[in-house]
C-alpha cells in the first residue's frame, strides 16, 4: 500500500472532522451559549429557541453528528480497503 493512499485516507478523515466539529461548536457553544438571548426571541411551542438548544437540541445534534461520522468513516474504510486489493496498487 502506497504512502499516497494512506495520506488520502487521512486527509478525508481530517476533512470530515473539521466539518463535524464546526457543527458541534455551532449547536452547543453557538446556539446554546453565545447567541442564546437572540435565539430566545424565536419561540417554538413553550420554548425559546436558545433555551431549547441549550437543554435539548444540542444533545440531539451530538447524537446525529456521531452517527454521521460512523457512516462516513465506514464508507471511507471500505473504499480504502477495496483499493488496496486492486492489482498493481
Amino acid at each position, binding site marked *: 500500500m502506497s504512502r499516497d493512499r494512506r495520506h488520502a485516507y*487521512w486527509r478525508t478523515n481530517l476533512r470530515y472532522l473539521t466539518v463535524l466539529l464546526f457543527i458541534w461548536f455551532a449547536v452547543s457553544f453557538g446556539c446554546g451559549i453565545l447567541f442564546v438571548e437572540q435565539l430566545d426571541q424565536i419561540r417554538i411551542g413553550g420554548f425559546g429557541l436558545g433555551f431549547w438548544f441549550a437543554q435539548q437540541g444540542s444533545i440531539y445534534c451530538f447524537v446525529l453528528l456521531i452517527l454521521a461520522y460512523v457512516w462516513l468513516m465506514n464508507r471511507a474504510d471500505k473504499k480504502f480497503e477495496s483499493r488496496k486489493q486492486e492489482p498493481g496498487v
Partner: protein
Amino acid sequence: MNVQAWTFVMVGLSFALYIGVAIWARAGSTGEFYVAGGKVSPLTNGLATAADWMSAASFISMAGIISFMGRDGSVYLMGWTGGYVLLALLLAPYLRKFGKYTVPDFVGDRYYSQIARVVAVVCAIFVSFTYVAGQMRGVGIVFSRFLDVGINEGVLIGMAIVFFYAVLGGMKGITYTQVAQYCVLIFAFMVPAIYISIMITGQPVPQLGFGSTLADGSGVYLLERLDGLSQQLGFAAYTAGGKSTQDLFFITAALMVGTAGLPHVLVRFYTVPKVSGARSSAGWALLFIALLYTTAPAVAAFARTNLLSVIPEIAYTDVPEWFSKWESTGLIKFDDKNGDGHIQYTGPASDVENELTIDRDIMVLANPEIAQLPAWVVGLVAAGGLAAALSTAAGLLLVISSAVAHDLLKSTFRPNITDKGELLVARIAAGLAVCVAGYFGINPPGFVAQVVAFAFGLAAASFFPVILLGIFWKRANDRGAIAGMISGIGFTAGYIVYFKFMNPELNSAAHWLFGISPEGIGTFGMMINFAVAISVSLLTPPPPAAVQELVEEIRLPDHIGPAHELSA
C-alpha cells in the same frame, strides 16, 4: 404494600440480577479482566458505557441542580454529552487501533517514556478516587432514606456487592452487569418522568411535555408558569441565565473535554473487537445517555413547578408526608424565622425572608412522592439510583486496579510477572480500592461534590491534550508531553485549591482570572497544556522513527499495519 416494602423488593431483585450476571461472566485471564477479552459487541459496549458514565451525579443530582439553576444548568447537559462527540471523533477509534489495556499504556508507549507513564497513572488514580467517593455517598443516601438502614451500613452493603462482581469478573463481569444496570436505571428514570409529564401537561413524552401547555385548561405554557412562579417568589426567571457568558463557555468546555479525558470511559473503547466498532459504540453510548439527558431538564422543570406550587405559604402542620421524611434525614431544613407557623420559601429578590433550605440532591428521589405516584415507582427510583452509583463505582475501581497491577507493577517495576500473578494483584488492588472507596463513603470529606466536578477540570487539563497531540501531531515528543501534563494539571489544581480551600472568601467573579470560575478553569489548564507541550516538543528532538511509524499506523483502519491483537 408500602413504599419501604416495595423498595426492598425492587432493590433486592436488581441486586440478585447483578450477582447472577456476575457469576455467569467470570474473568479467566488478564485480557478478560482488563478489557473483557476485546470481544464485546459495539451495542453491548454502548449500553455498558452509558451505565458506566451515568453516575449517581447524573441520576440523582443533575435534574435537581438544573431545577435550582434554570437555564444555567445547561452547562451540565451540554458538557456531559458534547464530550462524546470529541471522544468518538478524536480519541476512541485511535485508542482502539493502538490496542493494549489502559490509558497510561498509550501515554507510556506513544511518548516512549516511563516518566510519562507514571505521571499518567497518578492522574488516573487521582481522578478515579475523587469520583468513586461521590458514588459511595450516593449509595449511602439512598439506603438511609428508603430502607431505614444507617448510611454506614448502606455503604457497606454497596461495597460488598461491588466487591463481589468487580473482583470476580473484572471488566467482563462489569460489562455485563452494567448492561443490566443501564436497563434498571433508565426504566427507573423514565417511568416517573412520563407519569409526571402526563399529570402536568397531558403529554406522555417528557421532552415534549416540557414545552407544552399545562393540563389545567389554562392554556399557559409550563415554562411561562414556572417563570411566573419563580419571579413572584423573588427567584430569577427559570429560562433566564445568571452566569456570565464567558463562565458558561469555560465550564461547558471543561466538562466536555473532561468527559473525553476520563480514564474509566476511555478504557471501555478497548473492549470492542474493531476500530469501526469503537466509533459506533460511542454513538450507541451517547444515544442511550441522551435518553436520560434530554429527560432530565424536563424532570427538573416539572419538579420545580410542583415544588413552587405546593410549598410556599403552606402551614407547617399541613406539610405532606414526604416533607417530614426528608426533614428527618436533614436534607430539608425549615426555620420558622417570623414565627407564623407557615413556610416562606423565597428567592434573593423578595422582601420576605427565606425559611426553607432544600438539598438539591433530593429532587429526583423525592419527585415521585411530591407528585404522589404509586409506591412501586418510588421503590423503582431507589433501585435506579443504586444502579447508577454501583455501575460507575465498579468501572472506576477497575481503572484503579489496572493502574496498580498493569501500569505500575507489570509495565514499570516487575515486567516478568506471570499472567496469573498479575491477575491476582489486579484482584487484590480492586479489593483494596473498594475498601478505600468505602472509607470515603462513610467519612465523606466535606468537599466530595465539588471535588467530583473538579475531577473533570483535572482530566481536561492532563489527559486530553497529550492523547490528542499523540494521535494528530507526530512531532509531539516525550518531554513536551510530560511538561504539558504537569503544567496543565499543576495550574488547574493550584487555581482550584487557591479559590476553594485556601481563600474561599475571594471566590467571586471580581477576583477570578478573566472571570472564569474554578469549575471552568480546566479549559484554561488544557490550553496551557497544549501550549507547553507544543513549544517544548518543538525545542527538543523529534520522536524516534519507530514511534512516528506507530502514529501513522493507528490512523489507519482495521487490519492495516501490524495487528495489535489482544492475547485473550
